[in-house]
C-alpha cells in the first residue's frame, strides 16, 4: 500500500474524532446561547435592562434599584389553608419576613415620589426551611404578555441620546407589535398615585398554582391589601417632594407603630387568563383573606439584609408552584442574572455605594 493510502487510512479516524468533539462543543455553545443568532436569553435580557439604565450602577439591582429593607412577620388566618397545603397559610402560623419596598427603574438615586411603579418584595422563611419569595407591584396587570414584549419594551423605552426621551417612532412600533401595552399605558396615565408605600396595594400580577391538602389544584393571584386607606398625591406635590420622600414617609409611619397589609388570594374560574399577566380577572372572583403582613422596621438597603436577597418569585413553598406564564419564567431568569452580577460586583469591591455601612437613612 502506498504511503498516501496509509496516511489517508489514519486521517479518517482523526477527522471523525475532531468532528465529534467539534459537534459536541458546538451543541454546548448553542445551548449556552453563545452561537446561533440573537436568541433571547436571560443574559441578553439583562444586558438590555442595563443599557436602558443609561449607566452602570454596580452592586445594585438592575431593575427596581432604589429601595429600602423592611422586616416583620406574616400570620396566617387559616382561610388560605383550603387552597394550599403550604404551612405558612395554616391557621395561626407566624412566619418571619425579610422584605423590600422599592420603586421601578435602574437608578438607585431616582426621586421616589415621581416613580409610577412601586413594589413590595417579601421573603417568608418557614420553620421547616421552606421559602415563599414574592415580588409584587402596584400595577393591576402586567404591560406585556411575553418575555419578547418585555424585551422590546426595554429596548424601545431607552432614552434617545439626542432628546433624552424614548424615540416616539420606536414606541409606536412597540405598541403595534404588542397592543396589550395600551391598556397598561392607560392605567399609568389615569390611575391615582398613592402618597405612601404604606397605603399601596401590591399585586402578584402573575398567577400561581395552589395545591390543597387533597391534591386539588387551582390558579391563584394574590395581593397585599393595605389596612391604611388609600390617599392620592397630586402631581404638584409629587414634583415638590424630597428625593427620598417614600423612605422618609415609611420611617415616620413605622415610628408610630407597625404597618399592616392583608394577603388576599383571588381564585381563577375556568376561562380566566391564568398564563397571561397582561389580563386582569373579572372583579367578582372568589377572594380569601389568607393572613396579615405586619412590618415594623426598616433599614437602608446598603447595610440591610434585603440587599443580598434575590426576590425570585418562583422560589415557592410546597403547595404553591409557578403557572405556565412565560413572563413569570423570564422574571426568574433575569432576576438570577441581576443577582449574580451585583453580588459579584460587591464581592470584588466594585460597589462602594451599594455597600456603604452606617447609612441609616
Amino acid at each position, binding site marked *: 500500500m502506498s504511503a498516501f493510502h496509509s496516511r489517508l487510512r489514519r486521517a479518517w479516524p482523526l477527522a471523525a474524532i475532531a468532528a465529534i468533539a467539534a459537534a459536541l462543543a458546538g451543541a454546548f455553545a448553542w445551548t449556552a446561547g453563545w452561537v446561533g443568532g440573537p436568541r433571547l436569553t*436571560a443574559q441578553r435580557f439583562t444586558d438590555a435592562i442595563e443599557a436602558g439604565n443609561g449607566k452602570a450602577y454596580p452592586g445594585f439591582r438592575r431593575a427596581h434599584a432604589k429601595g429600602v429593607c423592611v422586616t416583620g412577620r406574616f400570620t396566617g388566618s387559616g382561610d388560605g389553608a383550603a387552597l394550599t397545603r403550604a404551612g405558612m397559610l395554616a391557621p395561626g402560623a407566624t412566619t418571619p419576613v425579610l422584605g423590600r419596598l422599592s420603586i421601578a427603574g435602574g437608578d438607585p438615586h431616582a426621586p421616589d415620589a415621581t416613580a409610577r411603579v412601586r413594589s413590595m418584595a417579601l421573603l417568608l422563611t418557614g420553620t421547616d426551611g421552606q421559602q415563599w419569595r414574592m415580588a409584587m407591584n402596584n400595577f393591576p396587570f402586567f404591560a406585556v404578555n411575553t418575555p419578547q414584549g418585555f424585551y422590546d419594551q426595554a429596548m424601545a423605552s431607552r432614552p434617545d441620546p439626542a432628546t433624552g426621551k424614548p424615540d416616539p417612532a420606536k414606541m409606536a412600533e412597540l405598541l403595534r407589535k404588542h397592543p396589550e401595552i395600551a391598556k397598561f399605558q392607560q392605567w399609568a396615565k389615569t390611575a391615582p398615585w398613592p402618597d405612601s408605600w404604606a397605603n399601596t396595594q401590591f399585586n402578584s400580577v402573575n398567577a400561581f398554582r395552589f395545591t390543597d391538602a387533597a391534591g386539588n389544584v387551582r390558579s391563584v393571584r394574590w395581593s397585599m391589601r393595605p389596612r391604611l386607606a388609600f390617599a392620592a398625591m397630586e402631581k404638584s406635590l409629587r414634583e415638590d417632594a424630597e428625593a427620598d420622600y417614600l423612605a422618609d414617609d415609611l420611617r415616620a409611619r413605622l415610628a408610630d407603630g407597625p404597618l399592616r397589609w392583608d394577603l388576599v388570594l383571588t381564585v381563577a374560574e375556568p376561562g380566566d387568563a391564568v398564563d397571561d399577566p397582561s389580563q386582569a380577572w373579572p372583579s367578582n372572583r372568589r377572594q380569601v383573606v389568607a393572613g396579615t403582613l405586619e412590618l415594623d422596621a426598616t433599614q437602608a438597603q446598603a447595610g440591610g439584609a434585603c440587599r443580598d436577597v434575590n426576590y425570585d418569585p418562583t422560589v415557592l413553598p410546597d403547595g404553591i408552584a409557578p403557572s405556565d406564564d412565560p413572563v413569570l419564567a423570564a422574571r426568574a431568569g433575569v432576576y438570577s442574572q441581576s443577582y449574580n452580577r451585583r*453580588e459579584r460586583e460587591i464581592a470584588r469591591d466594585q460597589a462602594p455605594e451599594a455597600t456603604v455601612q452606617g447609612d441609616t437613612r
Partner: protein
Amino acid sequence: MNAPTHFNPLARTLHWTMAAMIVAMLFVGVAMVASISQREWLIALHRPLGIAILLLALLRLGNRLRHAPPPLPADLPRWQALAAHASHWLLYALMLAMPLLGWAMLSAGGFPVQMTPALQLPPIAPRDPLLYAGLRSAHGWLAYALFAIVLAHLSAALLHAWVRRDGVFPSMARGARRPATEETPLE
C-alpha cells in the same frame, strides 16, 4: 495475581451511566442559566441530578480504590500516560466538587436546596454574599473546565479505539472475554 485487562463490571456500569448523566448535567446547566422559558424544569432537574452524581461518584471512587484499573499499554508515550492519569483524577475531583459547590453556593445565597417540592437538603455553608459570589463563579468556570476535560477524554478514548487499537477502549467498553474454557470442546 495477574493485572486485570478490563475494568470490573461495577466500574463499567458507573462509567457509562455517569458519562450520560454528566454530559446531560452540563447541558442542563448552561441551558437553565440562559433560558428564559425552560428554566423551571431544568433547575428542578439540575439539583437532584447533581446530588445523584455526587453519590455515584463516591461509590465509584470507593470501587476504584479497591479495584486497580487495567494498566495502560506499555508502549504509550510517557506524556500521554501522564495526561491520562491526570485527567482521570481531575475528572474524579470535579465529579465530587461540582455538586458540593452547587450545594454550598445555594446555601451561601440563602436559597432552599430543593430536591423535590417537599424535600430539601440542609445548608452546608453559611449565608454570606461574598462566599456566594465566589462559589457561583467557581461553579460556572469549573463546569466549563469539566466539559473541556470530558471532550479531551472522549477524543483520547476514540483515538485508542480507532487509531491505536490497543485495547484501552475495550477495557471500559466490555468485560474480559472468558478464558479459553469457552472454546474447549465439550467432553
